[in-house]
């Protein structure tokens, strides 16, 4: 019969109406600026650059290899390589970004840059309140704005950051071992030179780091 | 107090305007609009004569107007249906184009 369903529906909504006053649990909305939902660890918004140490510009892990720039689907990353080199965390001499810009208004948060970065240098941030009065310039961020410390990274994604650190430590250890081996090899070579036998080559190959093992295990 | 003649003149003017429209416009809908105006002019006449006539209690004029309005509504419905049917057939609502029945 027409009408019964309507009455049932009306009763249901009336329950909602009264329920929201008597039972605050019913209200699904959070009063946002005052109350906030704790962000989950999996939250990802836009990329940022990680630096170690205290000085953002000096500790920047980025080596301006430009892989992220090439891989970025919407092409929102712009990198200019520096002319000079400096020592990175592995102790190797690397370029660093003279300019590193990301246009947040174009970025689609796909996280591909993070996936491809071999240097654990670019990560996803959780900040989402990016509103600005200037919709062209305001969302174009440079490397000073992008640089965030490793501590920040640990705060927002603790598990992932730990894994990242571990991987880097491994790299560093390998680099150190390699350096040590190099030194030893040099010493040996010097000794071999002295002995005049070319036996150094088979020992050099296992020292190359395996790329698969080098990549950090992402927690996601 | 407006004299009866004023109403009658307005009615005549309205009639003439409707008539002129019905005579000269090419679109058949506007011919119908002209006819509606003429009908309404007649209605105004009826009411004016009812109001100023010798026997307003008889309500004859009002009755006539009410019936005329009902008939006009029917006429408009059928007329417009005809126009739409003609438009479907001839792809035109121009009165000149519908002359198949000419002698």
């Amino acid at each position, binding site marked *: 019969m027409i009408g019964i369903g309507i009455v049932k529906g009306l009763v249901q909504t009336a329950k909602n109406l009264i329920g929201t006053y008597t039972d605050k649990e019913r209200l699904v909305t959070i009063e946002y600026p005052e109350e906030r939902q704790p962000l989950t660890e999996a939250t990802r918004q836009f990329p940022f650059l990680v630096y170690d140490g205290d000085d953002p510009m000096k500790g920047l892990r980025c080596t301006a290899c430009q892989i992220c720039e090439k891989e970025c689907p919407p092409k929102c990353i712009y990198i200019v390589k520096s002319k000079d080199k400096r020592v990175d965390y592995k102790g190797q001499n690397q370029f660093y970004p003279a300019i590193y810009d990301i246009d947040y208004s174009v970025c689609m948060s796909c996280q591909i840059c993070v996936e491809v970065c071999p240097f654990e240098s670019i990560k996803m941030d959780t900040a989402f309140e990016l509103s600005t009065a200037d919709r062209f310039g305001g969302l174009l961020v440079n490397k000073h704005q992008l640089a965030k410390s490793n501590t920040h990274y640990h705060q927002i994604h603790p598990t992932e950051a730990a894994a990242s650190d571990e991987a880097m430590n491994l790299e560093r250890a390998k680099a150190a071992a390699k350096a040590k081996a190099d030194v030893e090899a040099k010493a040996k070579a010097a000794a071999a030179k002295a002995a005049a036998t070319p036996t150094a080559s088979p020992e050099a190959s296992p020292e190359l780091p395996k790329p698969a093992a080098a990549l950090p295990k992402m927690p996601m | *107090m*407006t*004299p*009866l*003649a*004023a109403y*009658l*003149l*307005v009615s*005549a*003017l*309205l*009639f*003439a*305007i409707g008539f*002129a*429209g019905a*005579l*000269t*416009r*090419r*679109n058949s*809908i*506007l011919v119908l*609009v002209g006819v509606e*105006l003429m009908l*309404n002019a007649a209605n*105004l006449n009826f*009411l004016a004569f*009812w*109001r*100023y006539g010798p026997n*307003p209690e008889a309500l004859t004029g*009002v*009755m006539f*107007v*009410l*019936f005329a*309005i*009902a008939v*006009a*509504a*029917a*006429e*408009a*419905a*059928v007329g*417009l*249906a005809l126009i*739409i*049917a003609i*438009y*479907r*057939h*001839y*792809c035109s*609502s121009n009165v000149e184009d519908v*002359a*198949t029945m*000419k002698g």
Partner: protein
Amino acid sequence: MNFIFAILAGLTVGAAFAAMTLRNLVHCALCLTVSLIGLALLYLQLGAEFAGFVQVLVYVGAVAILILFAVLLTRGGEAPVGRITNSLGAGLLVAAAVFGVLAWAIIGSSALKALPKETPQPALLVKAVGDKLMGEFVLPLQGIALLLTAALLGAVVIAMREKSSPAGVAVDSRSATRNP
């Protein structure tokens, strides 16, 4: 000559004139509506409240909308290009002659002059209208009911889309009319 009457008459006649002269059909229909509202107000001036409101209800609420629908259904929404009138001179002449003759008859009528200039406002009671409709005018009322039903059915039948009428037929008949 009363001031309000002059305004209403001007509105009615002016709108009617616009309805018959404007180029865009929708504007014409809207002007017709204004003219009909003006007429309804004139009815109120005459003391026929009931007739006036019925006029608004039927004409503005139904007939005007019907005309607008018909305009849109016949693709009359855009202003037509080219000639909008047809033998303008002759038509205007005849219409003017009709008006002239009517006006002459009205002004020259001796019977009208014999009527009293001032009559009391007759009380138009709705109850009286109802009594008349159900008593003296019951047969016309039923006739009107029949007529309206017939008109309704007729309008539906006429305007119903013809099934499977090939497009060629319409084109043919049209070209046939063009070449007498």
